[in-house]
């Protein structure tokens, strides 16, 4: 259950906004709000995840502090989102730990993984600091070990994310059957891939400061498509290995390396850009309790990309073994932390956009009488 004080804050926000509606042109949140007259926890949880935190409404609001109504939509939605991340997570205590101490938990995880892997490697024959002239890192960590370890962790992570998503879906009042709506999924996909809710009618958003800017969108695109690109690279790599039987190191001109490199660069530029913007954003709209969670996610993404790209460049040197180990520890940490940290914002925002696209096909506005 939503803490009473947060529920009240959310309901006060909706009472003010739904009788005002000046922001209806900005984003999906306001359009969806207008189809409701009662705001229970499920509605707030949904709208909070539909909010893209662009802050445009905050600056446009004649009722933000110091006005006595003192509403602050982006901040209230951010607080609600953090609450939902814990509510939907499976198993839940993990999310609480991440929300409270994101950076510490992440670092601890990396350290443990490095320790485990290096001791395992030593036990298996100490090949860690060997130069591998053909750059084939499977000579360092046998492919089987790597595949099995990542298959286990990956499956767990995917399962946890799926459970989180289904919890979200039911919590906001949808049933499993409504998931099978190809049309709505297509519309939602378009909203997700274009981040249309950061556009506000074409000029970008008031982030990090009041002045309209498209930086958030473009840095996010770099991050998001960088991530996708790396995902494709890994999938292709597995395909080359298992299906095409190419067991050596992929050539610099091979597709996995090209996708990995592009993705890695995106995942350096994007998250660093997002981080710089986070430093500059208006403190008034920030739920500071989430800073650790945000930062740890960004640090991990950047660490993965830098270590990954270094690995590519230095794969024929003696540094390769330790780099590989560190890189794999980062990736493994990301996989393990995905269901509990900031990554879930992508899952629930996508879910909210899917619900919004379903709503658009279902409902009519509660209109003012003529």
């Amino acid at each position: 259950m939503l803490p009473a004080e947060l529920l009240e804050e959310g309901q006060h926000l909706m009472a003010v906004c739904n009788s005002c509606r000046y922001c209806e042109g900005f984003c999906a949140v306001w359009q969806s709000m207008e189809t409701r007259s009662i705001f229970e926890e499920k509605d707030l949880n949904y709208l909070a995840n539909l909010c893209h935190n662009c802050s445009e409404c905050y600056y446009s609001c004649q009722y933000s502090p110091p006005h006595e109504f003192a509403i602050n939509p982006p901040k209230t939605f951010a607080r609600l989102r953090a609450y939902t991340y814990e509510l939907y997570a499976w198993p839940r205590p993990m999310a609480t730990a991440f929300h409270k101490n994101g950076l510490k938990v992440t670092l601890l995880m990396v350290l443990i993984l490095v320790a485990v892997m290096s001791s395992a490697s030593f036990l298996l024959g100490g090949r860690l600091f060997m130069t591998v002239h053909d750059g084939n890192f499977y000579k360092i960590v046998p492919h089987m070990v790597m595949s099995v370890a990542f298959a286990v962790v990956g499956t767990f992570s995917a399962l946890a994310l799926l459970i989180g998503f289904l919890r979200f879906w039911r919590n906001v009042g949808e049933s499993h059957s409504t998931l099978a709506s190809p049309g709505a999924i297509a519309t939602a996909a378009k909203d997700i891939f274009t981040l249309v809710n950061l556009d506000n009618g074409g000029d970008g958003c008031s982030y990090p400061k009041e002045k309209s800017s498209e930086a958030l969108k473009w840095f996010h695109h770099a991050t998001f498509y960088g991530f996708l690109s790396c995902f494709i690279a890994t999938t292709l790599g597995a395909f080359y290995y298992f299906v095409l039987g190419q067991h050596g190191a992929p050539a610099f001109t091979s597709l996995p390396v090209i996708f990995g490199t592009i993705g890695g660069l995106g995942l350096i530029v994007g998250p660093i850009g997002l981080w710089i913007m986070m430093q500059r954003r208006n403190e008034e709209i920030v739920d500071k309790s989430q800073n650790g969670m945000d930062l740890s996610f960004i640090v991990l993404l950047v660490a993965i990309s830098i270590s990954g790209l270094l690995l590519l460049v230095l794969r024929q040197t003696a540094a390769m073994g330790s780099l590989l180990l560190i890189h794999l520890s980062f990736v493994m940490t990301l996989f393990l932390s995905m269901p509990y940290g900031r990554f879930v914002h992508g899952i629930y925002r996508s879910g909210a956009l899917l619900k919004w696209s379903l709503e658009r096909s279902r409902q009519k506005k509660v209109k003012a009488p003529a």
Partner: protein
Amino acid sequence: MKHLEKSMSDLSGFDVLVVGGGNAGLAAALSAIEGGAKVLLLESAPEWFRAGNSRHTRDLRCMHDAPTRVMSGAYTEEDFYKDVLSVTQGKTNEHLARMTIRASTECTDWMGSYGVRFQKALGGTLQLGRTNAFFLGGGKAMMNAYYDAAERVGIRVVYNAEVIALNVKDGEFQSVTALIDGVSTEVGAKALVVSSGGFESNLEWLKEAWGPMADNFLIRGTAYNKGKVLRCLLDLGMESISDAKEGHMVAIDGRSPKFDGGIVTRLDCVSLGVVVNNKGERFYDEGEDFWPKRYAIWGRLVAEQPDQVGYSFIDSKAMGKFMPTLFKPYEANTIGDLAQQLKLPVDVVEATIQAYNAAVQPGTFNHEILDDCSTTGLKPAKSHWALKLDKPPYYAYPLKPGLTFTYLGLMVNDRAMVLRKGGERTKNIFAAGEIMAGNILGMGYAAGIGVTIGTVFGRIAGREAAMQALHPKGTSVVVQEVAIHAAR
């Protein structure tokens, strides 16, 4: 003292001084810069509270002969003028009104050129998509865009700067006295634009005009429109227009804050139920006409009741048929309990509702048209949408008069030039916005026309003030219209 010297030397050498930074003031300041002038704007509020009532607006009314990006259909000069005539019952200056209407065609493009954004056509919560263009994000977003533009083009804006006196000689403006951060400062310029709103936030003045009942008025917008500049200019012998009791007053939720409650305090349930005063008696036909057309008379109706309060009673059938409200309604399972909660005379209220219910005739309810649900033999009658209050739970909202803005203002000509008693022109004093809206709105109101008047006259005032400041002997571009006006 040091501070005083600094701000004095800082604020000298400007061509055009604009007093009041709402929509009209920013339109004037930007247009004066377009005319090549150096512009200073004094705004009495601190930065967050800048832009007075304009901060609370949502849309403006514009003429257009064909659909535009931001408005549907067509709204011709004749349509628009007919609407002005009907709401003002003829109390308008046709020349100025038509000039405003024609100039309104340019407003959205001009505002857009300074970064003001609009919702796409057909959007909008109210069915005003044909006649009105809606600001993306509302009036505060619009004013933020204007202030950003002002900074870009080099307009000097000073907040916490309240003008309290004017120095005018023979119809020629010399300087103003302003309290800047509380320090009295003399500021001169070659021409003056006054755009400091009406006097709606001046509780003493309201009391002077309305008597003690004014104590119970709520002010829907800014607390800073105290009418000091208006009073000074009237005292200096300028010609006035309209009347101190004229203005836009609506019935809003009685629980709203004294100032700045804005749009969210509106209540749209009057026509769906029955309204009683604090004696428990009905006093006006709740279903006389469509609510948007009657919205603006209910403020006065409630003001005339004892203690300036009313109570709108509805039953469960009406719930969800009007815009959501900020405050929750009072709720009870019987009319008696509801009356008790509101501390109204229970038996009178019960009798009023019983009499009403007994008078309701069968009909087909339709809130979209003037339907045939009415009462018979009841005084006052309810002529449309009269349904029995018989489905519990019952709900009630308290009503109080909510003043939007006052119409008593300065008479101007079509160059936005302030006229002296007898119609003689001042030399370099121009007015725009609420402070002169009474020239067009002698009474009544058409949604969105406040910003239209401010934008049109703001642009003219800024341009004319710049011209006056830079070429004091030159002739104006609107000579022809001046001639027409002189013949009035």
